[in-house]
């Protein structure tokens, strides 16, 4: 039923992009046959490095966690297979999962310790353990010290020994193809949207039910496993390992590949790996002759290249190239099922109760003993002058900053100490005072993020695209909500192209996809023009009539007075008054607080 109602997505009749990818894959598969042997070896290296760089795209470009230590994880995979094949006689096909286990466990341990770190502490930590692991490889006699381990057996496939670079190239290219495909699948999934949302900070992602820390650890381990796979390939293509390719310097180069190519694009990683590898090969021959001495002078050029990239093409080279390629259309999946809905509370029953809430910041009581009640099916406005504690109250209810004392009860459950993520899963959805959207994604994708908590598909299902049924249901639900707020026509445009008023409305649609019993709006009219405010008010009234309960924190008196059923007024962190708009308008204390009649001394005395 919904398909007929939805506008046809802008999808080209001819999937040019898919065709192009197929063409690129065919060329890549032909290369090992036609290139000279030396260049086939380079091709193998590019494929291997691109796998590591794709891990960095997921971790750094999408999730925003910078790691200089991927080479160390690659070393774990390489050394695991080197030791087990040469000393225990294992088949390489068994050492690959063994490498995953070793790398996965160490990455999990490091992730659990370091991913709680914020901002710049994490990359510094990756430098530290990147160096430590390198020195451990070099100083452990069982790993061959700095000379390494030789005579690693080749990989055997169906009785074939992949000992020549030409045959091994196919293994590396297939591995790269699978990794690239999986990464693309992941990015266009529920988990991928959560990863992108997390980049801007945990507040938005957690407001839609994402467990930020867990997702960070998952992606970190995934990137480490990709590096481990690359290490396994590297060990069996070189047939020997030593610590040098797994040093911090190598780790830095992988990050450079991702940054130069375009750290937010899977193909950017491949482009970066190819560029840096080929450039190094060329410079390694050219520079020593030019300078007249031996040494790895190519790092000078790499460093300058990175600085120039950061200054002139901060998103990397791939986006520049992509402009010339045909755009891929958004594909709407056929809907087979609908997401389960939530049972809505009886109108008029208490939905949210705040009792004697207190929030203390050091010596400041931002919220002091405030109580109020919100009934299902009404619009309640929370107003007050600047610094009245409205936003703090908002944070107490949404779990961003828990109350110092007092109680918040939602639908009969005490939510005072729950996290933002848990509170969202109980049926509370919100918008933000400063719009938090993903400008590079379509309205549809942005809206779908709101349904994160209604989906179940995890990392593995997303990597393999096994969650398409759920994704389809989510797409159609998001489309329905976009139509509900009047943005259905623009579902396939980019969110960054919208005006501020429409972005606010898009945030409402995103919140509605969560099927909330309570919708919280944080200053939705801030920065809007008059007409946009009227549209917003009309939308909220319509939603109320459809049974949505709304709590709105707002500055704008006109909007609030003509919209809400009841009001709670806060001043200096305390509850000043409560009642219908007419009662509030007549309340002298409220007028004093807002208009500043000369009673400030009394008020200050009362607040202290």
């Amino acid at each position, binding site marked *: 039923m919904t398909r007929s109602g939805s506008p046809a997505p802008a999808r080209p009749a001819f999937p040019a992009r898919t065709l192009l990818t197929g063409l690129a894959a065919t060329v890549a598969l032909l290369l090992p046959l036609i290139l000279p042997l030396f260049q086939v070896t380079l091709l193998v290296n590019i494929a291997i490095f691109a796998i590591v760089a794709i891990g960095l795209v997921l971790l750094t470009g999408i999730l925003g966690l910078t790691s200089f230590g991927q080479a160390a994880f690659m070393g774990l995979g390489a050394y695991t297979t080197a030791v087990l094949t040469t000393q225990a006689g294992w088949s390489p096909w068994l050492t690959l999962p063994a490498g995953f286990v070793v790398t996965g466990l160490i990455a999990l341990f490091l992730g659990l310790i370091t991913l709680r770190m914020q901002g710049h502490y994490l990359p*510094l930590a990756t430098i530290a353990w990147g160096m430590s692991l390198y*020195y451990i490889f070099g100083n452990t006699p069982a790993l061959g010290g700095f000379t390494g381990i030789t005579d690693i057996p080749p990989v055997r496939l169906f009785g074939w020994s992949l000992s020549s670079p030409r045959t091994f190239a196919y293994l590396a290219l297939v591995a790269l193809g699978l990794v690239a495909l999986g990464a693309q699948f992941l990015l266009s999934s529920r988990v991928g949207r959560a990863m992108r949302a997390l980049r801007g900070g945990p507040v938005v992602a957690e407001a839609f039910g994402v467990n930020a820390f867990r997702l960070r650890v998952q992606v970190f381990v995934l990137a480490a496993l990709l590096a481990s796979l690359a290490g396994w390939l590297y060990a069996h293509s070189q047939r020997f390992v030593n610590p040098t390719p797994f040093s911090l310097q190598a780790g830095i180069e992988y990050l450079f590949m991702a940054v130069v190519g375009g750290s937010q694009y899977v193909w950017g990683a491949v482009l970066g790996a190819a560029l840096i590898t080929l450039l190094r090969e060329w410079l390694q021959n050219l520079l020593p002759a030019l300078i007249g001495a031996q040494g790895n002078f190519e790092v000078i050029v*790499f460093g300058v290249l990175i600085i120039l990239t*950061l200054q002139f093409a901060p998103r990397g080279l791939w986006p520049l190239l992509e402009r010339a390629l045909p755009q891929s259309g958004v594909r709407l999946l056929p809907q087979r099922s609908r997401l389960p809905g939530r049972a809505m509370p009886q109108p008029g029953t208490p939905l949210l109760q705040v009792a004697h809430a207190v929030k203390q910041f050091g010596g400041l009581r931002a919220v002091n003993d405030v109580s109020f009640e919100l009934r299902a099916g009404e619009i309640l406005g929370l107003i007050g002058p600047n610094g009245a504690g409205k936003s703090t109250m908002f944070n107490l209810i949404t779990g961003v900053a828990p109350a110092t004392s007092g109680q918040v009860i939602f639908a009969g459950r005490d939510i005072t100490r729950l996290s933002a993520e848990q509170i969202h899963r109980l049926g509370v959805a919100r918008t933000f005072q400063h719009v938090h959207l993903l400008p590079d994604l379509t309205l549809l994708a942005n809206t779908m993020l709101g349904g994160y908590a209604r989906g179940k598909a995890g990392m593995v299902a997303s990597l393999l695209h096994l969650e398409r049924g759920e994704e389809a249901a989510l797409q159609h639900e998001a489309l329905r909500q976009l139509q509900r707020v009047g943005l259905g026509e623009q579902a396939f445009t980019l969110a960054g192209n919208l005006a501020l008023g429409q972005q606010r409305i898009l945030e409402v649609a995103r919140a509605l996809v969560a099927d909330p019993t309570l919708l919280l709006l944080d200053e939705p009219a801030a920065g809007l023009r008059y007409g946009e405010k009227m549209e917003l008010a009309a939308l909220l009234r319509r939603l109320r009539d459809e049974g949505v309960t709304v709590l709105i924190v707002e500055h704008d008196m006109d909007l609030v007075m003509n919209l809400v059923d009841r009001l709670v007024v806060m001043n200096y962190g305390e509850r000043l008054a409560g009642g219908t708009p007419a009662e509030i308008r007549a309340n002298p204390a409220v007028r004093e607080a807002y208009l500043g009649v000369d009673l400030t001394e009394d008020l200050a005395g009362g607040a202290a």
Partner: protein
Amino acid sequence: MQIFDPTIFPILAADGLTNGAVYALLALALVLIFAVTRVIFIPMGEFVVFGTLTLASLQLGKVPGTLSLLLVLLGVAALMEAFTQFRRGQTRQGLRTLIGAGLLGAALWVLAGWIVPLKPPLAVQALLTLLLVAPLGPLVYRTVYQPLQNATVLVLLIASVALHLVLTGLALVFFGPEGSRTPPFAPGNVRLGQVTLSQQSLLVILVSALLMLGLYFFFERTMPGKALRATAVNRLGARLVGISPSSAGILTFTLAALIGGLGGMLIGPSVAMTYDSGFLIGLKGFIGAIIGGLVSYPLAAAGALLVGLIESFASFSLSAWKEVIVFTLILPVLLWRSLTTRHLPEDEE
């Protein structure tokens, strides 16, 4: 344990304190740079290397490659500056920038070419070293970081790592792969009871302490120092009262390069410096800086001293594992720091 042997312990402790004092200077410079410009300055150690190796070249009567780097950077920076000025329509200022940079470069080139082959006394060589190394700081800021002024901390960090690689590579080109030592400023030993200490290590500790005191007065008593502190506290606010973030950045990087070059000459007699020693030296300063949360100067200095001591004792008992111990140590410190630092949940830069 052997390290507590009364004849060995004081030597190790003095070694640790000497190196620790230099790490402490670096830690202070790193905290300063981060506070003012948000740059995590990985190449700090390269200034140290350039300090030592420039002095070592001067000792041999060779014009160091530092001069070429300085001239190239000066040229690039002048072109960038003039380009901005031309675009603003300030043609005369732009020309003045170009001519000024040209004259300055020529003067440096002539000065170095004349004075270096004469092998002047150590003090003059040290001054010349500072003259060659200190300007690298502001020039690097102008060419690399100023165009990225509004980038995130992580982008600035990646730029720092890139710059570190460039400077290391150039150091290899300029000075070759061999290690060099520089002569001590204060030769001879002092006997304190049973222990013999070199006068140089006492000098290092003394100079470091004096420099820290000097920095303290600079920040507390002088206008530029106060301007830097204001920028560190609130960049926008400082800008509103007329402190330009660019000039604050340039001043900061000048101080940092000065500290780095001086540190290199202080540590030069005790460490065989190679072109790539800078990274490890810088990182050790870093551990100190991070112990101070990249904001507290006294904590950073104390942390760096601790790193010097740990390194000294570790290198005696477990020399192969020295680096593993020092760098694994950073993990609990980072964890503790990131758990205790208050984090703004929303709307940060």
